[in-house]
């Protein structure tokens, strides 16, 4: 356990610089986005009021009031979220492959640590999970910050103030990152974590059997997806409307647990018996 925690700490520190850059990009872009979008609204409003000499009511009728929702629709807001997601997706592969390739042969060291090799797998998965939660937390903190920027820049008569909950529910993509119930939160992030474990197992197949391993990895991935969606397939095509929603949810949880267990067991076997440097 002690060595597992040390490994998590070590893995996290290896990515820290890029991680801090991602956080920096998110903070800077979203604050800048709030300023630019608010400024753009003010310019448009000034144009209607002072160039086209409209009344305030007519200008508001034409342009509408601005809310934080409008800021979330800009590339300044969604761009850094997309960058973070893409970076973490790439890092899911990089976290393993960098230990084999390049100038270092760090995988020798990782595989020769006096601890169960599966701890390396768990440490890398935990690192990814911590990074995801960290970025999600930063994003959550950025919502009131962006909203405050909007409030500073736009007079109260020209804006609609939204609560954080309203901001989250007004935009579908944010609903994925910040589900409205704990139940949905567990589903979203458990599926994400299961995907990470399945991808890790596929990578270990490739690292154990090289070219053949790519095929094994793809088969394993397809098998995992099939197991996971099996209850839904049964409900849709074999026994239509047979399960109550709560039963279907329970079956999905069991299928998810099977996928996760299978990934861990297979990875443990590959790391112990098949992996090569």
């Amino acid at each position: 356990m002690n060595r597992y925690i040390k490994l998590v700490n070590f893995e996290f520190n290896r990515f820290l610089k890029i991680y801090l850059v991602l956080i920096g990009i998110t903070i800077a872009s979203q604050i800048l986005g709030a300023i630019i979008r608010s400024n753009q609204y003010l310019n448009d409003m000034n144009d209607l009021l002072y160039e086209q000499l409209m009344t305030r009511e007519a200008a508001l009728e034409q342009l509408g009031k601005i809310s934080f929702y409008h800021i979330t629709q800009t590339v300044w807001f969604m761009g850094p979220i997309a960058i973070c997601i893409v970076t973490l997706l790439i890092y899911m592969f990089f976290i393993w492959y960098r230990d084999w390739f390049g100038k270092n042969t760090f995988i020798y060291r990782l595989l020769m640590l006096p601890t169960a090799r599966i701890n390396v797998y768990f440490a890398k998965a935990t690192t990814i999970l911590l990074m995801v939660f960290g970025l999600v937390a930063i994003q959550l903190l950025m919502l009131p910050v962006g909203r405050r920027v909007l409030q500073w820049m736009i007079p109260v008569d020209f804006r609609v103030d939204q609560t954080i909950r309203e901001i989250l529910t007004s935009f579908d993509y944010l609903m994925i990152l910040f589900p409205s119930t704990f139940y949905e939160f567990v589903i979203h992030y458990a599926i994400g974590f299961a995907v990470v474990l399945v991808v890790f197992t596929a990578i270990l197949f490739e690292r154990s059997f090289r070219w053949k391993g790519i095929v094994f990895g793809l088969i394993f991935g397809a098998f995992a997806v099939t197991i996971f969606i099996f209850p839904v397939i049964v409900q849709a095509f074999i026994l239509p409307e047979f399960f109550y929603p709560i039963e279907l949810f329970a079956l999905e949880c069991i299928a998810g647990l099977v996928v996760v267990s299978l990934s861990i067991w297979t990875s443990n076997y590959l790391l112990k018996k098949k992996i090569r440097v």
Partner: protein
Amino acid sequence: MIEVKDVKKRFGRKEVLKGVSFTAEKGEITCLIGINGVGKTTIMNAIVALTPINSGQILIDGEELHKGSYEKITFIPDAITMLPQMRIIDAMQFMDDFYDCWNEKRAEEILSFFKLDKQERIANLSKGNTAKVNLLLGLAMDVDYILMDEPFSGIDIFSREQIAEVFTSHLIEDRGVIITTHEINDIEHLIDKVVLLNEGYVLKEFSTEEIRENEGKSVIDVMREVYQS
């Protein structure tokens, strides 16, 4: 004792090891010799479970390798096993964090023996100094067995001499060493046992002392006889 028993290993269609057997005792230096591609590195990797074998058995003091074995045996490959961005001191700290058998005092001793600056980054080291850091990380562990793969590969003569000195020092004393090298001249007088490999087989296994005393031959003489016949 490390026992390698009838080990076979295949990479795709090529059978690299075709039933290799030998033993390496504690307190002895055993040298694996053979031309490129005979499977020396594969044997080393297999002993520390970095390459799975197809059949056969490898025992370390009568047991198959398990996670605790890495406190008993260490492998020094021909490439550095630490991250290039690390400083030497970071690498030493890493070893201290993860290995109970890490001996900080000995590490400091080796550091000054090799005249290495522990603040230097691994990426900035010369090839010779990289090899020395690799040796430092292996030798500073209080283990019973040390495996070294081509420790003299591609480094200058002065670094080679310095590394060869290690073999006569107390750093190696009482430990079992398995070494692969092409630079046999550097350590010929230090090795106790030789395993000559060819095309996946052990051609000959002999004690250097017996060969010297009984037949008046050097290791290189025996190599010539065996490989050129």
